[in-house]
């Protein structure tokens, strides 16, 4: 654990979690609240843990499988994201993810492997998920697999920020692998957010842009970091549910600000899938966004501040 006056970071969800507080005296309590939420979401929603609720649902595809409330809530969020984007993000991309080689934690993926036979076919579809809240159970079609990568981490950030702010009574910013959520009263000049290609970058880095946020959330999705090779062809991790294979590469990365990190990450993922139509789609939903083309030029929409 690395600590500074008002910040702590720790490994979580296969990436790094960062907790910032507006009052340094609240750091320990905020850290504890965040860790509890992260552990709960990881145990329920991880596709790479053999003991997670989500793994049990995937393993039992075709049958009803009991699930605790955390997975029920997370899946409901994922289904809502699918519905509101018209299926541009879809929690049933798990099988397609495995097909392209993303079947284990990213750090364990073999970076160069043999070619894979990619079939262009629509994923099973969120409409075929059955969620029975009254009996605490889930059923997905036989052969289908869930992946909540487009929503669960961001939803976790929202919940962790809210829990930490309620516990401490001070403003809190939570970062989970670059997905940011803010809760409570922000510092007088807002939270300083550096938007750049890699969440491991420096807040003072030369590339990217620094903006200020007071609440809500911000998320960045892209095709340039989580990628690997199969048969000499580059593959990345954002699957287009309409085709069941990696989305066309129009944008290197897209950052979206929204009332919640969940909404932001849903929209940034949908933007990658949409490609050229993304700016119009984001603007129509009043979502401030910064889109970086593969060539490096930047497009701003929805009121995102120009540099």
């Amino acid at each position, binding site marked *: 654990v690395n600590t500074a006056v008002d910040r702590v970071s720790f490994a979580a969800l296969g990436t790094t979690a960062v907790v910032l507080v507006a009052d340094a005296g609240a750091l320990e309590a905020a850290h504890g609240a965040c860790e509890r939420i992260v552990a709960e979401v990881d145990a329920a929603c991880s596709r790479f843990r053999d003991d997670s609720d989500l793994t049990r649902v995937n393993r039992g595809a075709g049958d009803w499988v009991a699930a605790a409330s955390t997975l029920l809530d997370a899946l409901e969020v994922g289904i809502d994201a699918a519905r509101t984007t018209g299926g541009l993000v879809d929690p049933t991309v798990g099988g397609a993810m495995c097909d392209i080689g993303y079947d284990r934690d990213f750090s364990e993926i073999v970076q160069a492997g043999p070619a894979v036979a990619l079939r262009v076919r629509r994923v099973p579809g969120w409409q075929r998920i059955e969620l029975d809240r009254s009996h605490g159970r889930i059923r997905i079609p036989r052969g289908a697999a869930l992946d909540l990568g487009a929503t669960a981490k961001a939803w976790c950030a929202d919940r962790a920020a809210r829990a930490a702010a309620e516990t401490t009574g001070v403003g809190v910013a939570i970062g989970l692998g670059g997905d940011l959520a803010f809760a409570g009263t922000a510092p007088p000049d807002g939270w300083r957010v550096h938007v750049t290609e890699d969440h491991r970058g420096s807040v003072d880095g030369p590339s990217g842009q620094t*903006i200020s946020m007071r609440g*809500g959330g911000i998320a960045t999705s892209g095709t340039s970091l*989580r990628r690997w090779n199969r048969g000499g062809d580059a593959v990345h991790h954002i699957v287009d549910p309409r085709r069941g294979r990696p989305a066309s590469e129009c944008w290197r990365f897209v950052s979206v600000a929204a*009332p919640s990190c969940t909404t932001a990450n849903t929209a940034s993922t949908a933007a990658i899938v949409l490609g050229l139509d993304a700016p119009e789609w984001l603007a129509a939903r009043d979502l401030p966004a910064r889109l970086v083309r593969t060539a490096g030029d930047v497009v701003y929409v929805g009121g995102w501040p120009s540099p």
Partner: protein
Amino acid sequence: MGAPRTRKVGDGECARSQYATSVVAADDVAYDNTLGRRRRVTSDEHCRADHDRPRHRAAVGLHATTVRGRRRRGIVSGQT
């Protein structure tokens, strides 16, 4: 009016801020980000579905300025 629909409602959110296609009606059951559970949407929130853009931007809290000047501490948003 049929079975209640479910959607997320955020703190200070107006319904349009989610997606234009999912505007809620009063008395829908919704997932409340702030409470961490589902609750019934009020008529006030229904009214706020007819929001204007400036109000939405205020809810987002994104300042219309880029931060410049000396190095400041902060947090990074980037790809995982």
